[in-house]
């Protein structure tokens, strides 16, 4: 350490940074001018979850379409999206940049449960709309404690209720066995299912078995469930364990009515590895049109989406469900902004987000509608059951509304 320059150079570096800092301008309505609305977003464009990054891109593509068609009530949407690499500290930094420096009117579709958990408190302290977050956790529907945060897709508890309703209706005398992952995700499903059964019917559950995500196998749990004489099996597992559970159930000759959570409903990563024969007659709950399902090929919502993709996001994959997801949620956001009219204050954006009535989105299953209210921050709460026929999921029965609003 013989040279002397480093401290001086550091002073210089800090000085440059001071100059770079932009003083926050005072505005009556933050993030909105006569010609534009600023909407902020973070997505994992790099890192372990970068496969989801396409959602951030397809949203940008849809807002471009909206702008090309004249914008929302004459204002263009200025969509600012940053990469957070699915790393919560980076999410905090990028979101603070969006809120404090870019001065966005609202945050929209930030992706992932951990990244959103990291900014949950901050957004509500700053009173900035934190809308339609891309995660299935239930905690986003808590308007009393977190009035600025709202979820989007059906959460795990909602889905648990759907299965419970189906069991009560079709198998009123069932003995139910449950396998669940011992963490927030598994317990969310379990809680929804038990709440759906209600106090009177909770005793229908004859055995609950859990596993840790670090366990190598769940074979013994499956054997225990079979020996409990359960004839209905609610399978709350992530893909790796779902494969094991489906196989083992089949191999030991247990033939329960088998409900499989939507998390593991993928043909490619679960049903095929588990064996299509063993997967036959599984039941799951769906809320979106599967973009690879041939039954929607002539559906207007689907063909519109394909046309949009070809024009505005040609590099996006047409067999990636995430691109359908992003399209749906971008349409919902645009709807909320339209509904705001000329009052784009953060309060009104939140008020309108909590006042969506019977909105249909092109890639939701027919009949499923988005509904919110000041006490209900879970936009999609309907799902339809589907049975696996050995090749694909066949929708059956009516739509289930988790809270029987209809």
């Amino acid at each position: 350490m013989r040279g002397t320059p480093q401290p001086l150079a550091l002073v210089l570096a800090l000085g440059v940074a001071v100059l770079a800092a932009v003083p926050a301008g005072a505005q009556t309505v933050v993030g909105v001018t006569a010609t534009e609305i600023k909407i902020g977003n973070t997505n994992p464009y790099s890192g372990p979850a970068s496969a989801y990054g396409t959602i951030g891109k397809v949203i940008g593509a849809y807002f471009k379409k909206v702008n090309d068609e004249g914008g929302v009530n004459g204002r263009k949407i200025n969509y600012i999206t940053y990469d957070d690499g699915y790393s919560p500290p980076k999410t905090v930094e990028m979101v603070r940049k969006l809120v404090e420096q870019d001065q966005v009117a609202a945050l929209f579709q930030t992706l992932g449960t951990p990244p959103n958990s990291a900014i949950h408190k901050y957004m509500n302290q700053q009173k900035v709309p934190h809308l339609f977050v891309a995660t299935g956790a239930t905690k986003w529907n808590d308007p009393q404690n977190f009035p600025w945060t709202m979820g989007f897709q059906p959460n795990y508890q909602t889905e648990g209720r759907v299965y419970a309703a189906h069991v009560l209706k079709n198998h009123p005398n069932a003995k139910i066995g449950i396998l669940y992952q011992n963490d927030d995700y598994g317990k969310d499903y379990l809680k929804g299912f038990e709440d759906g059964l209600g106090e009177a019917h909770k005793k229908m559950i004859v055995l609950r078995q859990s596993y840790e995500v670090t366990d190598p196998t769940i074979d013994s749990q499956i054997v225990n469930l079979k020996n409990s004489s359960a004839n209905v099996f609610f399978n709350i597992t992530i893909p790796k364990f779902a494969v094991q559970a489906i196989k083992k159930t089949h191999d030991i000759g247990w033939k329960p009515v088998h409900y499989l959570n939507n998390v593991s409903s993928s043909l490619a990563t679960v049903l095929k590895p588990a064996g299509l024969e063993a997967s036959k007659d599984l039941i799951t709950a769906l809320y979106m049109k599967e973009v690879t399902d041939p039954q929607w090929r002539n559906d207007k919502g689907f063909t519109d989406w394909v046309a949009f993709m070809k024009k505005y996001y040609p590099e996006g994959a047409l067999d990636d469900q995430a691109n359908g997801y992003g399209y749906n949620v971008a349409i919902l956001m645009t709807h909320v902004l339209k509904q705001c009219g000329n009052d784009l204050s953060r309060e009104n954006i939140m008020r309108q987000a909590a006042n969506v009535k019977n909105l249909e989105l092109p890639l939701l299953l027919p009949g499923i509608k988005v509904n919110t209210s000041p006490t209900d921050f879970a936009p999609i709460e309907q799902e339809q059951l589907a049975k696996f026929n050995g090749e694909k999921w066949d929708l059956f029965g009516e739509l289930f509304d988790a809270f029987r609003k209809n």
Partner: protein
Amino acid sequence: MSGSRLPRLVGLLSLLLAACALPFVLSNFRLFQFSQVYIYAIAILGLNMLTGYNGQFSLGHGAFYAIGAYVSAIMMDRWNIAYGWTLPVAGVLCLVVGFLFGLPALRLEGLYLALATFSLALAVPQILKYFEHWTGGSQGIVLSKPNAPFGLKLNPDQWLYFVTFAVLVLLFWLGANLLKGRIGRAIVAIRDNHIAAEAMGINTALYKSLVFGVSAAYTGVAGALSASVIAYVAPDSFNVFLSVTLLIGSVIGGLASISGAVFGALFIQFVPNWAQDISKAAPWAIFGVFLIGFMYLMPFGIAGGIRLLWIRATRSRVPQEGRSAVPTQAHTTT
């Protein structure tokens, strides 16, 4: 040397003053970023002791950062212990863990040690999920930002800025004293030629393990500070990339240089953001260009580069000193 004392002191003092003035001119967002720079700088100094001064490679310092962060978060969340008390606990715990890890690691050299530490970085996020009762599993732990004590009129961002800065100054002062004295010479001697060092009576095994421990302690304290500044910990916060990032910071800033840790921290905090501003489509390609550019233009890191420039600029005034001041510390660290 006495001639260079005064400007050095003036430089350090003006730096200190400038840093203390920042909270009153910068936005809260910038302060948050600078708090992160200081945290990274502490972690990088820790890594620098190990890699730069002692010649041991680590691709796993993100693991110690994570342990520090979780120790702090669990203490705050479970037992309501003030964040200030969690810092020494995190430091001591990481010291012990680092020391214990350093013992078997003695048998590994160079790339093999790098791989062994890499396995730490890979394992820790998963292990954190296993102790869900304490760590909150993959959902992590949500914390509150501390408010300024004693009725100080500072917002949490300003206060945390001062806290991280004070810890930085303290740890850099301690580190400088450690590295410039007898112990520091022993550490460097082990790096340069460990047989010769042993012949001179240095207990290389003990020193290497101790450096590992101290290095881990610095990084652990940095992690503990980050828990308060981010106000959230989760396994996803401490992925493998964090370890690599710290190594990048330490090399770019300047190995075996104390001020280099700050330059490295500035680099890893701001350059990825600039890269993203330049190109949304391929930010990491831009980052890579920056990285190669820096390595090419400043092979001894930013600190080494500045030192060379300074020497060139002052050569006419103090020729003898200038010539001998070519960074001798940096060039043997490959």
